[in-house]
């Protein structure tokens, strides 16, 4: 990632792979922003508000067939801090 991409990161774009989609509507259920909608007649999912996507990735996780993918999301593995003691400052070490 360079300085330029911090100023203007890649466009966020929710996508659905129609060959994998089984019309379970889980993406619609999981999305907190109504990015997806349902086309009942043709039995397929629609992406109606891509601009509203918060990149929370709930839809990706809820999809049973990995058909949903959010393009452009920055995926960093954050380190889990060590367990803290009761008083919040000293880390508890496992017994040696």
């Amino acid at each position: 990632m360079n300085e330029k991409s911090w100023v203007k990161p890649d466009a966020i774009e929710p996508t659905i792979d129609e060959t994998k989609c089984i019309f379970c509507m889980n993406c619609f259920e999981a999305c907190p922003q109504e990015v997806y909608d349902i086309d009942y007649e043709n039995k397929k999912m629609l992406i109606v508000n891509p601009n509203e996507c918060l990149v929370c990735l709930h839809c990706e996780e809820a999809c049973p067939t990995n058909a949903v993918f959010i393009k452009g999301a920055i995926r960093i593995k954050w380190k889990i801090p060590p367990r803290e003691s009761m008083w919040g400052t000293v880390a508890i070490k496992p017994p040696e």
Partner: protein
Amino acid sequence: MNDISIVEVDVLVIGSGIAGLRAAIQARKYVSKVLLVDKTLFGRQSLSSMSGGTIGIVTGYWSLSQWQSVDEMAAWHILGNAFSVTGVREQRLEYIAAKEVVVCQDELYEYGVANPRSTKDYAVPGRPGWAIIGPLVEYIKKSDIQKIEKFMITDLIRKGDYIFGAIGFDIDTGKWIAVKAKATVLATGGAGEVYQRNNTPVRATGDGYAMAFRAGLQLSMMEFVLFDAWICAEPGLPQFWIPPSYARTLGVVRNNKGDPFLKNYIPTTTNFVHKELRNLEWGEELVKRFKGIVEKPATLDINDPFHVRFGTPVIDIVDCISRGMAMEVERGRGDSEVPSVYLDFSKVPAEAWLKEPKGVQGLHLLRNHDWKNRPVRMFPGALGNFGGVVIDENCATSLKGLYAAGEVTYDVDSLRHSNVFGVRAGDSAGMYALKVESKVEDDTIDNLVDPWEAMKKREHTTDGDPREVKKKIKKVMQDYASVIKTEEKLRKAIIGLDKIKEENLPKLWAQYPRQLREALEAWNMLHVGEMIAKCALLRRETRGTFNRLDYPKRDDIAWIRKSFIVLVDGDMKITSEPLDQPLIRFKLQLVPVKGMEE
């Protein structure tokens, strides 16, 4: 007769935010048959999963070692806290929350949460709370707790003074199911969705408030809506919370004249909490004893981070910031296109965004916005409700067999509260279910289904389209009952909502079960909106997140009171009564609110 199948359980838990999940786990320790239901996928649409992810404002933001005692923690929460609903907090509940927050938080280690104390450092950007909710959902899926996902509860089943469970329908099949339970836990969350500007998942429509109201329960304090200041109002960008990353704290909020106006609204003379402490009887004495809160002068230098600039943590002054923004817009110093003010990031170094997950979320949020050269427009948005169902210390409501926890109850506005009272509600419901038997006749159930079933048979008109009705409700609430309220505006809100009630509600239609869910949500939103507007009309003062332009002072003489809503003969009746102050007593005085009078 409708086709209703019946399920019998010991404890029914409605809702799967942190309160519902904790209640279900806790109730299972007492009884064998616990059923957890949610109107969508577990945890996904809960505000908990989108929230900051710090349970301990106490233990996360300020480490516990800074506090001298539980009393001090409780006092701080009664006085200040995130939304500064100063003076009208239920002090007994606050004391319990302060006492149990650490234990309840650390119990989460047992349910697989990697580090409940500081999820902010490793959570997925965009849904920090999922670091807590996710493992809890996994834990429940593996356990022998019964669960039904995508099951919309429509009503509680009441007979006499008892609640015998609830009735609802399956979102996929539309089939009605009545759950007969010995004890029921209501944990359905808040109603941020009643406003256009909000920071809540789309399903946060306040079903619990409306359900409780229909069942005849008492609700309180509904006028207090929590508005978070930092909601993006930039057209074309998602409307969401600009996260409190390093980048935001270095940003500057300006009006259309380029003036950093917040100093006119935030009390900067001394630390906010100290100022509140001095307002109490024996206040000076308390300031000397409370060593946990360090007094720092505000620098008012726009190059400093926010908490240095104003000498107090941002979370203490969210209400002042949102009041300031809304007042600038009210006085014509906002943006001309969208009602909003500007957040200027031009001096923020680019790498500040990548220091923590929340910063990355901010970057996602501003994806095609050139934040280096153009400020971001923002306006306060609804985050949740301070008010709700009245509970006692054990989360029992006024009806036997019904317990409530989380945002649906009053005095609860954070993950911290929801965690503590979720556990308490689970305990109480479990213990109650051990000693009672549930029996209810089927005719009561049939009456509850009929009004909703009728929606399926109606004509498909635009007037009755659930999504259109929702939009209308949101518009009325945003225009007339948002951050800055006046009597005139509130009356317009009530008239607007009445109009929707007469014209649109009888026409609501639904073809598919998912549309029926939306129709019900619209129905519930309208009633919640009405509660907010009517209670707001009653309270004649400005306090915390509640701003009345026609009564610009905080009135500790007349308004250390709580408002009540009850259903009397099909009508909404609003009353109020004085609030108990067993821990901290406020002086009888009028406190001017900075920036409300010009």
